């Protein structure tokens, strides 16, 4: 986990606060989160369980703990929680709607130097298709705090995707609470150009790109469910849509948005995400985004071309 101090603090504070308030909250980790849990281990040592490098058993065990009244938060890298343990999440947890919060850290290309084993660009697609499982994807420390509260308040399974969401605040101030499935407008702009819907680390990029083209931007802190009316309203308020995510273009935010628009509000949608490929090289997070066509210049170009296409064809 390579987060900024503020982001670590937002996550750790929320976890400690929830655990101090409710002794049924347990933190299970698969031997990850070395310094991230210092405060938790100091404040609530009895509620901290290092389950070893044994993720499959850890998730099954969390289901057992939830069955007898506990509120497990299960922490791992997104490459392992959820990806390595998708079947345990499906069968042991989601099937019975057990209140387990799955914390998948380092989603996307956070571990940019370590290669494919520690990168995760398929986790949204996998978790979205599991019944009862809600999927959260905060974009900054304010959304993170609200997402932790939402996850705790949900008496059912939640996957909280933690990516490189510390690229700068997206919101100006703390968020009261997340509303199920709702988009959050983070920038106003022109109605005759495409609107941007982004999630996680890409919200910051969306806001930056939107400035020069004066585009509207929404953050999607929750990917499942995704509010149908909100997506339709965004499509109606703008001329075409662009989705941005640090995740495969297959099965993630872009898919969720187009599932809605194709049925309810036919709209031309440009899906910007990770092409259907693994990382070739290693480097900084910014480098890997560029390798996959998610660098800020590439994104700006693609949106610019999309704007021209829409303007010339009237096909939005």
């Amino acid at each position: 986990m390579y987060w900024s101090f503020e982001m670590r603090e937002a996550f750790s504070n929320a976890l400690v606060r929830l655990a101090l308030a409710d002794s049924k909250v347990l933190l299970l980790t698969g031997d990850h989160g070395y310094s991230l849990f210092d405060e938790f281990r100091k404040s609530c040592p009895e509620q901290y369980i290092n389950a070893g490098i044994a993720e499959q058993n850890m998730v099954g065990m969390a289901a057992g703990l939830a069955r007898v009244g506990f509120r497990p938060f299960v922490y791992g890298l997104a490459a392992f929680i959820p990806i390595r343990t998708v079947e345990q999440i499906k069968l042991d947890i989601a099937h019975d709607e057990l209140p387990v919060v799955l914390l998948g850290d380092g989603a996307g290309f956070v571990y940019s130097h370590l290669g494919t084993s520690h990168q995760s660009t398929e986790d949204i697609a996998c978790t979205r298709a599991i019944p009862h499982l809600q999927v959260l994807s905060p974009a900054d420390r304010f959304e993170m705090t609200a997402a932790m509260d939402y996850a705790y308040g949900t008496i059912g399974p939640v996957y909280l995707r933690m990516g490189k969401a510390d690229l700068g605040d997206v919101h100006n101030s703390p968020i009261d609470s997340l509303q199920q499935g709702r988009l959050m407008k983070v920038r106003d702009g022109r109605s005759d150009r495409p609107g941007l819907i982004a999630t996680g680390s890409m919200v910051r990029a969306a806001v930056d790109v939107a400035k020069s083209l004066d585009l509207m931007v929404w953050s999607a802190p929750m990917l499942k469910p995704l509010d149908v009316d909100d997506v339709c309203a965004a499509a109606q308020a703008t001329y075409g849509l662009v989705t941005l995510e640090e995740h495969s273009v297959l099965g993630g935010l872009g898919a969720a948005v187009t599932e809605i628009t194709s049925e309810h509000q036919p709209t031309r949608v440009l899906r910007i995400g990770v092409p259907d490929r693994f990382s070739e090289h290693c480097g900084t997070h910014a480098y890997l985004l560029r390798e996959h066509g998610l660098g800020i210049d590439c994104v700006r170009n693609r949106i610019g071309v999309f704007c021209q296409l829409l303007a010339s064809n009237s096909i939005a």
Partner: protein
Amino acid sequence: MTTFDPARMRRTVLEMAYAGSTVHIACAFSIIELLTVLYRNHLRYPGNDPRAEGRDYLVLSKGHGVMAQYACMHELGWLKDSHIQSYFKDGSDLKGLSDSRVPGLEVTSGSLGHGFSVGVGIALGLKRKGTDQKVYAIVGDGELNEGPIWEGALVAAHHRLNNLMLIVDKNGFQAMGTTDDVLALGDLQAKFSSFGFETLEIDGHDETAIDAAIRQLWATGPNKPKALIARTVKGKGVSFMESINLWHYTRLNPQSFAEAVSELGCTGASK
């Protein structure tokens, strides 16, 4: 008064399998005596309620043997005759593998190597709550091929889950052959002992031995999880099924059903 007569429970299994034209008879037959002793002498269900908060937990990790558990639930009155007769009918609740939505079944299993981990979590939770409830997890010997079983075994010993008993249905077969031929398990008692379990190995069809072993395991190794290795016969109770792995997959026809029922020599399963 429920008696959990093994012959009658096998007949219940046969009636279900025949009514539903389904498979997995032999792996249900191997655990009949184990379940008989557990339900008759050990499992506590306050108010005969399968979902009572203070209950002991029987986790059938080898979900393929679920018809044996249905037979016990029928003995307890949790399932009615109509459940037996309508097995696998469109829209019915009882599936061919353990499904936790059915009161009396604790886990959704059949994908192997899941139930034991859930059982470890239940046992850890109960221990944290300071109750005297116990958790029994039945796994197949073939299921021991699955990695999470061994992850769970490490965790159970590490957390000193002395309220957890793993029961291995060691019938020597898995789907495609004998366990020795497919993936040899070696000395299971030695393996679980070395993992930190209090272990015993017994004849899994000898009710007296099963009962004595369960009592002994709970009484010894105060800080250890328990492992009971039960030597069983796949298809036990019907001569033409015993240790014939075909009966993992074979469906009954009118003739084999009649022959099997006649061998059991007991009157109707349905009460």
